[in-house]
């Protein structure tokens, strides 16, 4: 069977409710959400806090099951976490007891890739993310931006179909963040058609990076609108008239909510 036409990720009428045992209240985090992510796409989910962005991410990563509906990856229902859907976390979540090289090698070790291949792959990714000379440092010795480079390298080295990024640049200062947006584009050029699911609440970041931007509304989380961008990257979000128009539109959509 040829699966090349199957979307990388698909949500079909997905709802998710959380029940607070203490208050006995039910919270509807996602309400009948459907969308699909094509292979090789850089797919951005944009929304205010409380719009269920992180919930979608947890469903796709396989950390939590949906209450209703179906979540599919490569056409198959997601049953739990898998290296095929590697995650880059906002808080980077590096293993503090492992060096930069060992953090990047972690997924490869879990996959029981032979040591030699592993070493080559780690060296390659240390180079790709621009951390040459830092292989033997521990995470506590790195700056925030450098930690996130390790987090990105770690998720890419495992060679998954899909990389999930949960506001990966959200914890960085403005200057480092702008720099890392460019770096992320450069790093992803090294990857052949990897599907990226990228969660953010920054309109600017979404416009700079996304092939597609899914706008969520808050409480309950619903799909509000989807934007397509075909402009080549890196993009200037201040000169392209179409992007400028989208920028205005996105601000209007998001600020009505908050």
């Amino acid at each position, binding site marked *: 069977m040829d699966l090349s036409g199957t979307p990388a990720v698909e949500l079909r009428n997905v709802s998710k409710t959380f029940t607070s045992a203490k208050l006995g209240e039910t919270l509807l985090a996602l309400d009948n959400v459907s969308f699909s992510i094509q292979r090789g796409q850089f797919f951005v989910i944009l929304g205010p806090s409380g719009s269920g962005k992180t919930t979608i991410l947890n469903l796709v990563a*396989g950390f939590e099951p949906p209450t209703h509906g179906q979540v599919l990856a490569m056409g198959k229902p997601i049953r739990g976490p*898998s290296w095929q859907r590697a995650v880059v*976390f906002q808080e980077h*979540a590096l*293993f503090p*007891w492992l060096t930069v090289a060992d953090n990047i090698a972690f*997924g490869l070790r*879990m996959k029981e890739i032979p040591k030699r291949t592993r070493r080559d792959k780690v060296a390659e990714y240390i180079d790709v993310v621009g951390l040459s000379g830092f292989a033997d440092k*521990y995470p506590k010795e790195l700056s925030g931006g450098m930690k996130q480079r390790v987090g990105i390298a*770690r998720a890419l080295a495992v060679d998954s179909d899909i990389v999930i990024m949960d506001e990966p640049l959200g914890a960085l200062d403005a200057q480092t963040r702008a720099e890392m947006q460019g770096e992320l584009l450069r790093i992803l050029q090294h990857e052949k058609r990897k599907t990226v699911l990228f969660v953010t609440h920054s309109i600017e970041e979404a416009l700079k990076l996304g092939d597609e931007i899914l706008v969520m509304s808050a409480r309950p989380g619903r799909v509000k609108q989807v934007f397509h961008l075909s402009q080549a990257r890196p993009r200037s979000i201040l000169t392209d008239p179409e992007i400028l128009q989208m920028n205005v539109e996105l601000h209007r959509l998001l600020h009505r909510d908050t």
Partner: protein
Amino acid sequence: MRRFLSVRVWDLTTTVLVVVLWEIVADYIYPAFNANSRNIFPPPWAVVQTAGNLISNGELFHHIGVSLLRVVVGFSAAALIAIPLGLSMGAWPGWRRQMSVVVEVLRPIPPFAWIPIGLLWFGVGDTQSIFVIFIASVFSILLNTVAGIDAVEPILRRSALSLGADRRKLFYHVILPAALPQIVVGLRIGLAFAWMVLVASELIGSTSGLGYLILDSRNLGLPSLAFMGMLIIGLIGYILDIGLRTLERMLMPWR
């Protein structure tokens, strides 16, 4: 800067002053009020003299050796049982619930309360001391091991799972190293407890060891012997903790 037992030489000033003060009080001030002061509160040089005598006849090292052996055996046995037990309780919640009442009822019993039972079961001697030392250190190691596993950040588990770890690999490659710092804290507290009850158990149920030496000083009317015994107990406890802290740094260079 020169270092001695991880302390800078300059930082020993207060220690030296305390000894000087001790000397002044014991040799000049107290004797002015009490003619019998020597037999109650010996000066530092008398303590050193006593130590010298016991070193030259080999008795001091015999008692230190006996005490250390008891601590090492009791403490190691506690660690060998408490760490795997704690890990298993951390890994399997059902097993932990099974164990929790037993542990929670036994834990608050002061280890000293076990000394009479130890004497009844094992009589006067090594085994009794080892038993009480085991009891004293086992709970802090056990509870800290469990707490260490509880404290593993959920995001690290998720991170490992999304990089392809299965349950077994998650345990060996994430939970164990993440819990290690807390386990070492448990070992340090356990060792401190072990050393504390050692003396109590030797005071009551032994004919050798540093605790016995202290008790013996009263029978002999030799307070310098008690002072010496106490100082050696303090000093060895200090050195043992430095040893564990060094081990901590070697095991966990990332901290």
